[in-house]
């Protein structure tokens, strides 16, 4: 199973800035292994962000997002103590959900 995400969510001026690091290879599908064979693409495809259980953003990602992806966005009207939940799914069917409390 994939390693946990690191989610930082900080309130500022009535909003909350959310920064997420995800542990994922994000294999491009362009790279060849030592035997010269193409390594198949393996990447996060879908990301969902929720604020206190309500979806605030969804995203589609390709293989060109960098390894161990970083994501930053700002949730309007979110305050300290609120919950931010992030979920990702990759093209191999693996997924991960982590939650953080806004500070």
């Amino acid at each position: 199973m994939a390693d946990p995400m690191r989610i930082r969510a900080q309130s500022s001026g009535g909003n909350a800035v959310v920064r997420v690091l995800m542990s994922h290879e994000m294999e491009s599908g362009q790279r060849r292994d030592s035997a010269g064979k193409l390594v198949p693409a393996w990447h996060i495809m879908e990301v969902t962000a929720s604020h206190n259980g309500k979806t605030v953003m969804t995203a589609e990602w390709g293989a060109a997002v960098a390894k161990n992806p970083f994501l930053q966005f700002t949730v309007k009207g979110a305050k300290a103590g609120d919950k931010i939940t992030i979920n990702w799914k990759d093209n191999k069917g693996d997924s991960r959900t982590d939650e953080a409390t806004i500070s």
Partner: protein
Amino acid sequence: MKNRRDMLQRSAVVAGLLASTGLFPQFAHAAFNKNAFDAKNVADSVKAYGAGALTESKDITITGPDIAENGAVVPLGASTALAGVKQLLILVEKNPSVLVAMFNVTEAIDANVTTRAKMGQSSDVYAVAIMNDGRALFAKKEVKVTLGGCGG
């Protein structure tokens, strides 16, 4: 910086739990837009999301470095203060597949997202905002990718 770790919120693991309780119902219907990610140029990729012709706009901002020390990790951001944004796209013109990421924007977030892309070579990078009315507004800038290290 010194208290960075303290500021970090420990991510509570609730894997599978939320997903199975149906807190993410849209995932059941979410259709990854393969055509947009297979597209070899910016126009085709944007078209795959049903948007109209591309128009350059000062209201859209693309953020990224002028020079990336390494193409493996290039921070790129797309933002706009305009209302009525449906989607934000980040694209790299000279990548084998141009689209890096697409974000569905809701009223609950700022139309301002940042992620990090892989770039195979120096290229123009694009931020595209697809508006609720179907317009596709964009901004672009050049990012030079240098050869880092000793090349070994």
